[in-house]
């Protein structure tokens, strides 16, 4: 049987699968909804600074000196201007604690009774921030904002003091008080968000998931319904069946991947820096590296249910370990080793480099080599096992 025959037969099988999918209205709706949900989900569940809007924060001034009152007034003014917090009067730490428990407040600020006297006697004055550790995300954000605001207020006060005592103007005073200032300059134009980070990963994941889940599903479903026998008993290469199914599933995955890309660009303002064709090529390569795994699962699993379970077991760790949502560098070292043994990691990394950094083929050569090797090795193992398993 020639390569031409194998390809021709596989294309007919793919035609059948895609026609079947196209006529399955429900499946078509899901095909489009899945990437949409995925994007909206990851786009909005992760906390950003804008999540903090008009948070109710208790303010207790235990100091009756003029400096404490002035500080409280200043803080109120800054908070209102920024719109991040809305300050509520409070009587002290215990009151704030009670009101956090009741859900009235997100955090609090306490000006201790020795605030004025400390400042007047030339010592540092302490401002207490009350944080709610049961909500680490919000309390961390609030803590950060309050610290920044209070430090800024400290700086203003220092500038006023210095310019008054040394008789210099305020910009000179600023240089004395804060000699260093930091400016960040990114390598990516514009202002990339978490979305830019996560979009390439979701694309890689969607495409590969569709092959990893779709392929075993497509084959074991036909096995269970008996229609696979029709292909197995036809004078075609076993490879044609695998290839046909793969072409169909890859097309499905690519459609979903492109929907993700479209949504990312149109709705979430992600920009593609690199070559679009390279992007497409990477997606297809990623799929091929997963085909072997899909076939392996199909061969080992007796029925559709077992296949689905096996896939879920493999897929979830892969989703979270491959740097799709969280940078791999954040993980403990041994987890990083696991991450770097998964093909999805390389696909995600390469896609991210091309999409955000505008990388060319050369800069992603490692990823390319690893993905190709993965694909070939897994296929070389999977195809003979598949052939044997089908005759059991």
């Amino acid at each position: 049987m020639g390569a031409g025959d194998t390809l021709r037969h596989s294309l007919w099988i793919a035609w059948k699968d895609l026609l079947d999918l196209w006529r399955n209205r429900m499946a078509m709706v899901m095909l489009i909804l899945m990437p949409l949900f995925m994007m909206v989900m990851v786009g909005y569940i992760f906390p950003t600074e804008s999540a903090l809007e008009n948070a109710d924060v208790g303010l207790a001034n235990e100091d009756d000196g003029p400096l404490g009152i002035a500080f409280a007034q200043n803080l109120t003014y800054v908070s209102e201007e920024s719109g991040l917090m809305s300050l509520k009067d409070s009587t002290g730490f215990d009151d704030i604690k009670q009101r956090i428990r009741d859900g009235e407040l997100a955090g609090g600020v306490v000006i201790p009774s020795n605030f004025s006297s400390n400042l007047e006697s030339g010592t540092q004055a302490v401002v207490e921030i009350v944080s709610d550790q049961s909500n680490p995300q919000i309390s961390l954000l609030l803590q950060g904002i309050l610290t920044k605001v209070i430090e800024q207020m400290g700086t203003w006060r220092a500038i006023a003091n210095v310019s008054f005592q040394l008789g210099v103007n305020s910009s000179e005073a600023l240089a004395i008080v804060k000699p260093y200032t930091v400016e960040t300059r990114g390598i990516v134009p514009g202002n990339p968000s978490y979305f830019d980070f996560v979009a390439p990963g979701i694309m890689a994941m969607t495409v590969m998931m569709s092959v990893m889940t779709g392929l075993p599903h497509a084959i074991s479903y036909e096995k269970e319904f008996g229609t696979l026998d029709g292909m197995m008993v036809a004078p075609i290469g076993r490879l044609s069946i695998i290839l046909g199914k793969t072409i169909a599933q890859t097309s499905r995955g690519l459609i979903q991947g492109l929907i993700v890309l479209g949504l990312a660009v149109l709705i979430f303002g992600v920009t593609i820096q690199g070559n679009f064709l390279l992007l497409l090529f990477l997606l297809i390569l990623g799929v091929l590296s997963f085909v072997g795994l899909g076939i392996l699962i199909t061969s080992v699993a007796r029925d559709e249910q077992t296949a689905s379970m096996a896939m879920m077991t493999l897929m979830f760790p892969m989703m979270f370990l491959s740097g799709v949502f969280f940078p791999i560098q954040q993980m403990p070292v041994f987890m990083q080793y696991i991450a770097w043994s998964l093909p999805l990691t390389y696909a995600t990394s390469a896609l991210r480099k091309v999409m955000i950094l505008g990388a060319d083929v050369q800069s992603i050569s490692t990823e390319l080599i690893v993905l190709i090797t993965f694909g070939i090795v897994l296929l070389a193992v999977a195809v003979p096992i598949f052939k044997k398993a089908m005759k059991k």
Partner: protein
Amino acid sequence: MVEAIVTRNLTKKFKDLVAVDHVNIDVKKGEIFGLLGPNGAGKTTLIRMLCTLLAPTEGTAKVAGYDIIKEDGKVREHIGLVSEKMIMYDRLTAVENLKLFGKLYNIPKDTLEKRTHKLLKLVHMEKWAKSQIGTYSTGMKQRINIIRALLSVPDVLFMDEPTLGLDPQSTTEIREFIKRINIENETSIILTTHMMVEADMLCDRVGIIDRGKIVALDTPRSLKRIIGGEDVASVDIEIPNLTNEMLEALRNQPTIVSVVRENETHLLIRAKGEDAFDDIIDTIRARNGKIAFVKSLEPSLEDVFLHITGREMRAEVSSKVKSFQGGGRHGPPALSRRVR
């Protein structure tokens, strides 16, 4: 090619279960060969091995002259399969389904179109050719399923329970169609069934398979003869005033082989010899017995199965049918007894 199928010690084991146990059969070219046996006897496993879908554990076989292990590709070119589960895609139309399989068999476009048209016409399905299979009734589906297997004009056609779960009309039509393909195309057909009447009607020869072994193999006629010779007559007789004395007298007649009392008034009598009928009637009449009803029965393959294996098939069969039809029954059981 003289033999369509030759098997030598063909065996399939699933762990400890021997599904097919050293089977040796020779199916002649152009023959309709029936494999008859209860559910789980090994019919499907045997068929799957011959179709190259299953690797044998031991032994070998040749189908259409090719070895099923070494030349499986060649075997596939010459066979067609109608399996118990229909090989069709519900969301494709009949024509699309046939097109797919035609393409897999490398049938040229023109030939494929001509054959599709001809076959659809043959099973009276042209009207529904462009409807999706999912909208068909079971009988319609099976017609398409069968012509799908015939698309490549196979030398050997395997049919695993081709009429299972079909309504009586479709069953009759499909049986006639099977006969017709066999005659017109000289296609050798291997047919599995648990229905005696089907094997009896269609098959040139029947192999009775039980627990993986071929326990009997011959023409339906010869198989029936196993029970007690050509001149055995079976009579179903109703005597409203049946007495024990009458029963005793019948049992004592030398020509009568056996008497089974089915209920208060019904008897099932088997007798041998030319005068068998006369003897039965005379014995009853001599004791003032009234004969309300009499029917002569020919031994069925079911009787043969019972005779050979010592077990009834029907209980096992109806459980299988139930699982397929959700409680429905496969026509009246009396169908399996043919009136002479």
